[in-house]
């Protein structure tokens, strides 16, 4: 299991950096927002928590299609399925590797990008907290989507289509935490919901992902 995690991390670093690039996409989406909605800083301040959450979500999403597809194409997944590792462990580790290479850097970079979008002062902490709590759910849900679409020729967009509705609850509560935090409102309720979603997803979805993957390997 550790071998698999280490390999996936190594691959992410080698392949032009799964690390840097998810981040870069986040950065770029954030930068493009003012170009499209205009530069007024009050407007930006209003939408910034939501935009940052949406950007993080899209950055996660964009890196999902390489989560399992590469292993599928070169036959590694067949071999892993016949190896003495339960598929549940395989998908959990894949999700973990995805979070480490994508979610974690996003959490760390969010405050910097908050500056670009005039995020109000009290919002920074809440933005980071909500992302740290929410991104693991994004990775686990995304792994499920990747397992669903892995056999399809370039399921990239189909993957997005399937995963985005699943991301809605996480997004709603996550963005709500960040938004309320930014205007110094109470954030307990959405925060609890967010934590609940993440805990549930992490505990249960790997079984669904493994089942789906087994079907796709047939």
């Amino acid at each position: 299991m550790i071998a698999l995690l280490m390999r996936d991390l190594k691959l992410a670093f080698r392949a032009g950096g799964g690390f840097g690039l998810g981040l870069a996409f986040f950065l770029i989406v954030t930068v493009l927002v003012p170009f499209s909605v205009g530069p007024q800083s009050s407007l930006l301040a209003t939408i910034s928590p939501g935009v940052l959450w949406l950007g993080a979500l899209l950055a996660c999403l964009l890196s999902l299609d390489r989560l399992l597809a590469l292993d599928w194409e070169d036959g590694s997944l067949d071999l892993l399925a016949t190896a003495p590792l339960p598929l549940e462990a395989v998908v959990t580790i894949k999700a973990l590797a995805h979070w480490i290479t994508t979610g974690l850097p996003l959490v760390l970079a969010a405050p910097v990008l908050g500056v670009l979008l005039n995020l109000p002062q009290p919002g920074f902490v809440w933005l980071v907290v909500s992302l740290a709590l929410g991104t693991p759910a994004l990775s686990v849900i995304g792994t499920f989507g990747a397992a669903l679409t892995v056999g399809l020729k370039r399921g990239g967009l189909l993957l997005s289509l399937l995963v985005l509705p699943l991301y809605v609850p996480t997004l709603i509560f996550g963005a709500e935490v960040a938004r309320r935090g930014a205007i110094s409102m109470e954030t307990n309720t959405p925060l609890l919901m967010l934590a609940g979603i993440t805990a549930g997803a992490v505990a249960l979805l790997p079984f669904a992902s493994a089942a789906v993957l087994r079907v796709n390997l047939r």
Partner: protein
Amino acid sequence: MSISAKANRLWAYANPKKFLETTEKALPFFWVAAALCLVVGLVWGFFFTPDDYRQGSTVKIIYLHVPSALMAINIWFMMLVTSLVWLVRRHHVSALAARAAAPVGVVMTLIALATGAIWGQPMWGTWWAWDPRLTSFLILFLFYLGYIALWEAIENPDTAADLTSVLCLVGSVFAILSRYAVNFWNQGLHQGASLSLDKEENVADVFWVPLLVCIAGFVLLFVALVLYRTGTEIRARRIKALQARERVGA
């Protein structure tokens, strides 16, 4: 000596070996000169210039901000030229010089952005505003990142040189387009009328002379860094070639 003969002598330095030998000799001079100018310029600027009547002591940031901003743009220019040389004459040293310069350009852009942001907080009351000049710097930063990422992602050095050169060319055109687009999009805060430093004649000599020294320092530092780093890239390139050969020989 005719111009073309001179040019030919210049091309001789495109031979990696000759380049290494020559820069080996020239580098100490550049290091020392850069250090000298930087120390003199910055110390002079920081300790021995008066505060501006309007901006107070923040005016001292100019000694870092302006030189780095200038370098950030000009380094991209230099990369454009060396990329063209590679595409036309296929001298490896030229492509490698572009590669060596890019990280220096990133750092310069970062310094300009950071000092600008720090300056913006007291002057404009915000770290960041979507002012055209600031924005176009951010875009330049993205171009640098993309350029470097492409170099890192491609394994075959010649392929990488070709592709990054074309990217640099196309990117330059789009960078200029963005500059106009951004200007059109937002008129911005940077150097409003209150900051008359913009026009050369309005700058008091007390600020101007140390600023010039700092600019010279940054330029010299860049030259030293690029020569040194190009040497490093040449060696890395040769290591790669030798290792590849070693493997095939095996």
